[in-house]
């Protein structure tokens, strides 16, 4: 199920009421589709599912948003959503992409965060808030991992190895207590 937080007005319009309707069932199906790159998360967990609605004239319109501009997973998400909904008996399935407002890691659900951690990926902290003015320059190493717990041993003694990882959304970190590297979902 899409959370009310995201679907209510983020795209500039109120969410359609969920319930025993076809829209409600379409939402459940769409929300349960797995992310192609992070299969432990559903699209709803990741917060990329913006809206699911049944059109008055029939058909279902699903609205998603990409995590990163170059994210190659978007096309797979579109195909997967379409295929799943068609298989569940929906017709006239259309998948739209909205770029605005841009996705933020704050939209990852609480259950999504738990699933990430269980899979060895440290969940993101709160996305940075911009003060007015130019984007501030971060010089030198990023601040050591205050609050970033190692997903293997739970230690907070962690450090960033590289802000770029195996996918656009993850950074490489390591734990100084158990000496293991781990991935961390980036805050954006």
């Amino acid at each position, binding site marked *: 199920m899409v959370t009310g937080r995201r679907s209510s007005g983020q*795209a*500039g319009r109120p969410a359609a009421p969920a319930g025993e309707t076809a829209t409600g069932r379409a939402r459940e199906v769409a929300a349960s589709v797995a992310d192609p790159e992070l299969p432990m998360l559903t699209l709803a967990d990741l917060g990329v599912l913006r809206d699911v609605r049944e059109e008055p004239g029939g058909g279902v319109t699903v609205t998603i948003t990409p995590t*990163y*501009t*170059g994210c190659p997973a978007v096309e797979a998400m579109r195909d997967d959503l379409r295929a799943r909904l068609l298989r569940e008996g929906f017709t006239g399935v259309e998948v739209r992409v909205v770029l605005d*407002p841009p996705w933020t890691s704050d939209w990852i659900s609480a259950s999504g965060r738990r699933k990430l951690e269980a899979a060895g990926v440290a969940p993101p902290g709160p996305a940075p808030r911009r003060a007015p003015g130019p984007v501030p320059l971060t010089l030198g*190493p990023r601040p050591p991992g205050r609050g970033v717990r190692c997903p293997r041993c739970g230690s907070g003694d962690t450090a960033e190895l590289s*802000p770029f990882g195996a996918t656009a959304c993850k950074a490489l970190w390591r734990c100084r207590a158990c000496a293991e590297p781990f991935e961390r979902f980036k805050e954006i």
Partner: protein
Amino acid sequence: MSHTSDNALHAIIEATGDLGFRDPLAGVDSRLPEGAAPADLAAYCLMLGDDALVMSHRLQQWCTRAPELEEEVALANIALDLLGQARLLLSRAAQIRNGAGDAGRGTAEGAAAGRWDEDRLAFFRDAAGFRNVRFAEAPHDDFAHAMVRLLVFSAWRLALLDRLSSSRDPVLAAVAAKGVKEVAYHRDHAAGWTVRLGDGTELSHLRAQRAWDAVLPEAAELLHVHEVEGRLAAAGVAADPSTARGELEDVLARVAEAATLRHRPPGRAPDGGTGRYGVHTPELDSLLAELQEVARAHPEATW
């Protein structure tokens, strides 16, 4: 931002069933802002898209050549972000150009007569048709050079995208708002390496200084204002590059100081004859020969 169901792309998707799955702008609100000439807006999207495409390709050339595995991954990620921005911007340029007075629109004759799309723009234009800044096409002599060039490019692009995120063109604004988050990472990454190399060993300092001295004089080009940029900036659609000078100079001065590098700020912007006018260095020809080789050898291929 609201979304209408009556835009041209939806009509194409509904008519063909799957064409939209290949267009990165499928399902995105495509309306044009008032007060901006469509030809100007298409030209502007081409400029910003070509900057990203060409810089992305230069960074991709580091694959298998970066000094360490983590850096290889980092540069590939940065290149992918820029490629994503290029796809959206070139698609926007094509969408506007096709929609504005293309008589053959939606017909087989129209396709034969040359409707644009992102692939056609990326793979079937010659260098003179590219509108990227020359700054983006220069080859990287060594890793220090790559990091200094990426620093200057990202600091400049970040300042532009930040301004563009309030553009009156909804697609540009959305692409920019997303790009700001990405390019901020790129800039900080390059800044970190510049400091590490400049304030490192004697040899790394020497090479970082050499890179700085080679790259910084070229930065003046980035602050030139093409007449299209000037007109669109006045209409609230584009970012005026000359307004980015203060921010760019501030970032570069701070990085140079932390990196113990001798710094000279970018000089006066050239009056014209830059990459924005299709005036390029021979390096762009060789870059495009590589970038376009497969598509031109197999023009009927699809992916």
